[in-house]
């Protein structure tokens, strides 16, 4: 397969030293194996995320996203924009939909963009990395590179909200998306297709502002993974990853549970399965260490 090239929108949480920096590490290694070339949009800005709503207003939020489109167009005309973060992807996609369907909004956006010397002529396609993997590469292609199957590891595929609703990945159901399970299977591990909390909300930003509400949901998500005998949870979303992983201690305090389950990105599983070491997979970035994965990553590659 020829090299696939995209404009890359990593998002705030993926930056160095930020909460999803390990996601970026693993994505970079994964893309290298898969011959996917990601070129970062120069000087990209925050998508505004869903939680910014109180102060954001409608137009400022879309303008913020539109700035990234304009920069992408300026530097990489014609390239699709790929985001790894669910919120970035959703925020950008929403802006794309709204601007496409409202001439007024489009005109207003253009006017505001002028202030920073930018312009939009064409609407870019906004893709999530998972879409790129599934739709542009396909499971067969992804599977070809597996040299170290994660045999015997039982993994709960936690899809969460924003990669799933309202847009979701083509062909998947909102209530029971199966692509993470297919990915788990693809890397040689054991999926849990009937994991019933796979699309439960992690609480989103309420994890910060009203933690008791979010943690009640995090508890359900983790508990059900345990009930199904999962050794780890895998997710495509940085906020899901963070919420479900880092608050397990707090949940334990609140509910008297003894949760200690690693929460991984799909890209980390793939890197290990593709023969990458712990560092390339960003395993050092886990607050709850993924020992089992570290062991596998330390093993020699089967060729």
């Amino acid at each position, binding site marked *: 397969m020829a090299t696939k090239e995209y404009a890359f929108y990593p998002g705030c949480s993926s930056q160095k030293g930020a909460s999803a920096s390990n996601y970026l590490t693993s994505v970079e290694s994964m893309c290298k194996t898969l011959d996917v070339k990601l070129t970062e949009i120069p000087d990209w800005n925050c998508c505004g995320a869903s939680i910014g709503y109180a102060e954001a207003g409608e137009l400022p939020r879309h303008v913020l996203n539109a700035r990234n489109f304009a920069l992408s167009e300026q530097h990489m005309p014609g390239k699709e924009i790929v985001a790894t973060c669910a919120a970035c992807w959703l925020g950008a996609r929403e802006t794309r939909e709204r601007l496409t369907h409202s001439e007024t909004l489009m005109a207003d956006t253009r006017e505001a963009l002028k202030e920073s010397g930018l312009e939009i002529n064409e609407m870019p396609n906004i893709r999530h990395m998972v879409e790129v993997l599934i739709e542009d590469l396909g499971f067969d292609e992804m599977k070809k590179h597996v040299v170290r199957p994660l045999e015997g590891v039982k993994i709960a595929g936690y899809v969460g909200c924003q990669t799933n609703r309202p847009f979701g990945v083509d062909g998947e*159901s*909102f*209530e*029971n998306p199966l692509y993470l399970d297919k990915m788990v299977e693809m890397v040689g591990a054991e999926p849990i297709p*009937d994991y*019933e909390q796979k699309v439960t909300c992690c609480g989103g930003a309420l994890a910060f502002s009203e933690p008791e509400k979010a943690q009640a949901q995090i508890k359900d998500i983790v508990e059900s993974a345990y009930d199904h005998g999962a050794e780890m949870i895998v997710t495509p979303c940085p906020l899901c990853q963070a919420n479900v992983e880092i608050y397990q201690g707090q949940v334990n305090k609140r509910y008297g549970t003894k949760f200690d389950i690693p929460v991984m990105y799909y890209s980390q599983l793939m890197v290990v399965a593709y023969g990458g070491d712990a560092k390339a997979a960003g395993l050092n970035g886990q607050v709850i260490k993924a020992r089992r994965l570290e062991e596998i990553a330390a093993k020699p590659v089967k060729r």
Partner: protein
Amino acid sequence: MTEHVATNETILVVGGGISGMTAALEAAETGKNVVLVEKNPALGGRTSQLYRYFPKLCHPTCGLEINLRRLKGNPRVRVLTLAEVSGIEGSTGNYTVSVKVKPRYVNENCTACGECERAVETMVDDPFNYNLGQHKAAFLPNAMAYPQRFVLDPSIIGTPEADKAKAACKYGAIDLDMKEETIEVKAGAVIWATGWQPYDAAKIQPYGYGRFKNVITSVEFERLADIHGPTGGKILRPSDGKEAKNVAFIQCAGSRDENHLRHCSRICCMASLKQTHYVREKFPEGGKSTIYYIDIRAIDRFEDFYQKVQADPTVTFIKSKVAKITEDESGNPVCWGVDTEGYKRYTTAHDLVVLAVGMEPSVKGINIPGHIASDSSGFIEADPANGAVFGAGCATNALDVNRAVQSATAAALRAIQVVNKVAKAEA
């Protein structure tokens, strides 16, 4: 029933359910020649798969018996089963219709004695029971089947099973060399009475149909209650065969929903009200029904029936569209939602959930041969562009049986108007 030659004074009726049979019989009893085309191996259609009708709680097979008797005694109707229209050519008063007839592998010698069924061992899914059960690969489609003639499932043709069936038949009724054929029928007018299909419940993702065994559809529930059904008339849930005494009915499963069917399917509220009666009938002790609804549409004279069910202490009404269904460890479906009257949240486990699935016209998504104008839901519209092709029954709108029969009777007259003109012109 003798065979007559179809001419352009013949009326072709497509669909042998209650609407098609009505249109055919009403036209024939007014002196017209009719060809009735049915895609299944037996007439009766969707209503013959119902256990009881609302609001009288009488049995659809009772009316079917009358209609079949009318049919058996009327030489003007020629019935083609396992037959589908594949093309219509011509114009008002002068159509040539191509009908594709699938092989039954059983000819008119069949006496329905059942020897072939006893000889064959292969079991196949039983579509009459919505595949909730199986029947032999040599079968009579149902107890009321007309033509009263067995059918061989195509899957056994060319296998020793088919030979066994043939050997068992003493009357030379099994013909394994039957082939699919396309015949041409002349007609002056065509009545399209292809009815409806239950909306594909698996598309209503939050309800988990297909994922949870104890979430079934309203049409399937009819089969569970019916003595001819897969459980012999016992309401047993699919997962473990346990008696389902605590049953939830979810209204608007697909209907009134822009993600699915935009229209209201009209019959589902009444169907669920009726089905609470099945629960009461089968479980005089401990039967319990819960209806989750947006609006109860017990329209016109049916209101009485609603009031009767409302007065029943075993039936609970909750104004709420159920948000989602999960399954608990005992396999009970659990309904999640909010009672919008008074804002009460609920997570309630039931033995069985019945989705009151919406009505989708059977013609939707199928390329009707020839031009037929339909609305965006797929229902056939009355449109001059349709020439002498007239819709009847649920192919034209979401209708209850009574209204479907009215519609079919009206369609018969419209067709008669056309063939009368043809006759006059030729006289």
